[in-house]
């Protein structure tokens, strides 16, 4: 089967879906790989490396996409490029199927088997294919670096002959994969770290990284069977804001990662909370793309209000594009090799399988994913 890897077209997208190392492994499985010219340049992988790994370098993007039996990319395709894809081909990328119903329809109509990377279930078995995790993880690290860079202080404590510099206080809101990595990175740098999440199970995880979990009593909260947070009621959100206000005003850095899968992100930090921070403070809003946890944060801008910098970068993993590409590519490889049948040389799309049941959106001209199907009904 022919794999096709086009260069990412989105602004600020420096990642690539497949790196040479995975190309090598896939060819060993018996797949052939075509990549677009210079697709890996921004993440540090040259055409030579791809060629050496066994990929064919193709200049013509259209031809490339037309020829692929399996198309691998990071970002969702635009409507126009969907038309290029072979009917019956397999298309794997982020898709945002909750919101992109037109795109999903287009893929379905064309008979494309579309796999959405954000729909990979959060199970232990699927973790190796879970791109949300792998990328969120890097985002957690990047956020701390961005904040540290912006802060007009240093993060660790230092007792020096010229006085004692107290450690910076970092407050992480939402301790999912990204939040935990942010906590770990800030701790590493010597910050005093506090964290909050609505899911109570997270408290132990936060403490296991040496940070302090902030207790705010919100009454009944919980998580779905996939481990995602449930949405809060508006009273609960008010309670949460109240409880956080004081901590935020004492923090040098606030990092927000709160998300509710498939819904706009909760607005947790209000403008007056931002105003209560000391000048020079920094807030990083990871949820900026899905609505923002922080009032006033804007995608891909750093807004300064009252001396506080509000960093809202929509594509954090892309900042460490080399590692991010490596991990995304490994996720794709793991997905393909899990369902690759070496004898028949085909990908077995067993829709009864736990993982495929969740992540395959359309197949043979039908929307096969239950959740997306239900979404249409209502």
């Amino acid at each position, binding site marked *: 089967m022919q794999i096709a890897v086009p260069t990412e077209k989105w602004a600020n997208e420096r990642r690539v879906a497949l790196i040479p190392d995975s190309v090598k492994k896939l060819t060993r499985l018996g797949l052939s790989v075509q990549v677009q010219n210079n697709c890996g340049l921004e993440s540090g992988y040259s055409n030579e490396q791809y060629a050496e790994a066994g990929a064919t370098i193709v200049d013509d993007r259209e031809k490339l996409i037309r020829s692929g039996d399996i198309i691998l990319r990071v970002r969702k395709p635009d409507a126009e490029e969907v038309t290029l894809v072979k009917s019956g081909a397999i298309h794997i990328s982020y898709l945002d199927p909750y919101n992109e119903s037109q795109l999903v329809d287009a893929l379905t109509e064309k008979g494309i088997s579309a796999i959405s990377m954000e729909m990979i279930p959060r*199970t232990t078995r699927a*973790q*190796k294919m879970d791109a949300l995790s792998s990328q969120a*993880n890097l985002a957690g690290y990047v956020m701390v670096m961005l904040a540290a860079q912006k802060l007009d202080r240093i993060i660790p404590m230092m007792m020096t002959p010229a006085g004692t510099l107290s450690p910076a206080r970092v407050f992480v809101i939402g301790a999912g994969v990204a939040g*935990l990595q942010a906590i*770990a990175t800030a701790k590493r740098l010597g910050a005093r770290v506090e964290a909050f999440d609505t899911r109570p199970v997270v408290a132990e995880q936060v403490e296991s990284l040496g940070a302090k979990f902030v207790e705010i009593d919100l009454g009944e909260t919980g998580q779905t069977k996939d481990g995602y947070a449930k949405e809060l009621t508006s009273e609960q959100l008010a309670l949460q804001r109240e409880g956080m206000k004081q901590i935020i005003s004492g923090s040098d850095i606030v990092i927000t990662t709160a998300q509710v899968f498939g819904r706009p992100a909760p607005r947790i930090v209000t403008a007056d909370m931002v105003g209560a921070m000391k000048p020079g403070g920094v807030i990083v809003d990871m949820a900026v793309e899905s609505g923002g946890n922080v009032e006033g944060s804007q995608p891909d801008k750093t807004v300064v209000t009252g001396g506080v910098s509000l960093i809202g970068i929509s594509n954090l993993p892309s900042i460490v594009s080399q590692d991010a590409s490596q991990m995304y590519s490994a996720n794709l490889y793991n997905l393909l090799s899990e369902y690759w049948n070496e004898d028949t040389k085909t990908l077995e799309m067993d829709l009864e399988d736990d993982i495929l049941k969740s992540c395959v959106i359309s197949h043979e001209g039908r929307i096969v994913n239950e959740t997306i199907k239900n979404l249409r009904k209502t």
Partner: protein
Amino acid sequence: MSIGLIANLSYILSAILFVFGLKMLGSPATARRGNLLSSMGMLIAIVAGLTSKGIVDYQTIAAGIFVGAIIGSLAARLVAMTAMPEMVALFNGSGGAASLLVGWATLYTGDISTFTAVTVLLAILIGGITFTGSLVAYGKLSENINSAALVFTGQRIVNSLILIGILVSGYLFSVEPSPNSQWLFVMVGLALLLGVMAVIPIGGADMPVVISLLNSYSGIAACAAGFAIENNILIVAGSLVGASGIILTNIMCKAMNRSLANVLFSGFGAVKQGKAIEGEVKPVSVEDAYYLFEAASNVCFIPGYGMAVAQAQHVVKELGEILEKNGAEVSFAIHPVAGRMPGHMNVLLAEADVPYEQLVEMDDINPRIENVDIAVVIGANDVVNPSAREDEDSPIYGMPIINVDKARTVFVLKRSMASGFSGVDNPLFFGENTRMLFGDAKESIAGVISEFN
């Protein structure tokens, strides 16, 4: 002061030297000096023994000593370093033989009370067992006889018969004790036979433990002989060796993670016990764990989320260092999904400054996990769950795991039998070679560290 008094005071001195000697033999720094002290004690005791009243004929004694010294010193000097254990078995056997003979000879020294008769019998019985038992142990170690555990049907019945025979002949002899009593000969024969029967069914690998136990017996035999001839130093030295030998045997069993009973009778009941152990949780104490760690030469730590919860990374690193100093090869195998975020274990181990060289990936450790003496699972669960490999119905079936169940011994450090993140039961905990070290991981490891004095 009479000669007798001086002799007896010398005995006290030699007893003191024995005590010091044994004590010092227990620690590497002083062991050699301890052996010297104890040999001085022996010299004093021998000289004092030579002054005993009844001794007239020194020539035969000298002859005996001469022959014995030659044999002993030649054997000790010529034996290859690798053959030390079997040599010790031989020496031990001759000690047992000596006790048997002394007991027997006592019967010729005059009137025999029932008390004396009983002690003589004990000396003969224990001495005899020691003698032939040691010979068999020697044979197994030097591979002159089949070193495998030799089991035959009816073994138990034969042994029971021997025991009954010993009781009966012992009773009949002590009713009418005489050097010429036929029951005496029966007794000697049965004792020798019992020694053979006791050691034959034990496998060659367990021989060191057996020798240590027989060593303890030879002390007890000397002690019994001491009672027979009412000699203090025999009693003191004999019981010192008897008691310390039992402790040492126990220590050796622990280091092999076996019970003494298991060593002695595994040959007999092998088939029956195997089944019973399966599906059984075997908790282990910190102390026992220590003995295994002490003897291990390849240790692999497998950390999981529990290490993070316990914040045990610092003590784990320290234990690793101690084991390395102890001569073991130490590695940390990191499963990709261990913990609750990608790289969770890396963060912790870097904090504890574990060198990157010691970190190995799952795919690197699995092919060589058979060579790992101890796999230490620290608060990990799902990532070492063999049902991911074996049980098709398991929700985690298909996930690659670290195959700790294939290591020689597995220690699992966790607080309970609870399951991990995925909520799946873990058959590893019931494994044949698994030992559960229950408790907070940090405390358990700190405990082991403090055992390494």
